[in-house]
């Protein structure tokens, strides 16, 4: 299993999820994507959208001013 990282703290909706989708498309099923994102809209929407597309949210943790979300690709 490989782990890729993605920082979308500087992006806004919907580019936050567009970048997450691209990063997920580049990894294999079961691999993990660690996404650093801001609170508020990205925190509300990115995990939800990833789940809606069948991926699994492993964890959501605070990381300084931001959040770290681990997503397992479906």
């Amino acid at each position, binding site marked *: 299993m490989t782990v890729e990282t993605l920082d979308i703290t500087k992006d806004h909706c*919907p*580019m936050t999820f*567009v*970048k997450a*989708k*691209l990063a997920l*498309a*580049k990894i294999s099923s079961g691999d993990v994507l660690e996404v650093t994102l801001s609170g508020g809209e990205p925190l509300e929407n990115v995990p939800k959208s990833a789940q809606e*597309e069948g991926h699994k949210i492993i964890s959501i943790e605070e990381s300084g001013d931001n959040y770290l979300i681990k997503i397992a690709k479906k």
Partner: protein
Amino acid sequence: MRDYTEEQLERYSRHILLNDVGVEGQERLLDGKVLIIGAGGLGSPAALYLAAAGVGTIGIVDGDRVDISNLQRQIAHFTKDVGVWKADSAAEKMRAINPDVNVIPYNKYLFASNIKEIIGKYDFVIDGTDNFAAKFLINDACILGNIPFSHGGILRFDGQTFTINPNESACLRCLFDKPPPPNLVPTCSEAGVLGAIAGMLGTIQAAEALKFLTGAGELLNNKLLTFNALDMQFRTITVNKNENCPICGHNPTITELVDAEQAVCDLK
């Protein structure tokens, strides 16, 4: 998978966000090759939308030049383009929308003698022509060359379209075995068209091409979509492959391409 620039990601973001398209679907569009035959009422919106979508290679064919009477509905051409080759004029707008796209204009008409060589380079064909001879020629060339295509036609307030998957779904000759006799084709005085319905029909054809390339949804295979803009009613009529079809039936009588007789009134 290709590396996307920030600009490309933004440009294609609304496709990538779609669950049925996604990054994989956008990749297929960027790798796709579509030929649009006719840079007129149907071909104009189809060309602009396919270029906007990032279809990697788009051929556009027309042997005519822009006339001022075209501008009421052929939205790829502007007033400044009167007298310019239509394929060149459309190509200029397509490149302006999306410089990623490789646009190949063909400033010529297609005949039995040259169609096979050109369509063979493409994954999907859009028939945006305005006469029966061309429509049957495109049908026959696509069936013999096994290239899926979208048939489309408009007149007055009416439009019709369906999508042909050669040898799998009904083709134009399954429905109409040959072009109508020239005296049944509308005369010039009967041949007005409401400009906006060209956009309605050509855009449906573009959507079919995008669905074909991405694999999203169900195509209009064996489904003839018709509409009348006066009452804005849409109908989908189920059509069937005809086992006696002269080109894709059990005992085809058409095994090579021939040019059909043109109608009396050759509309621009």
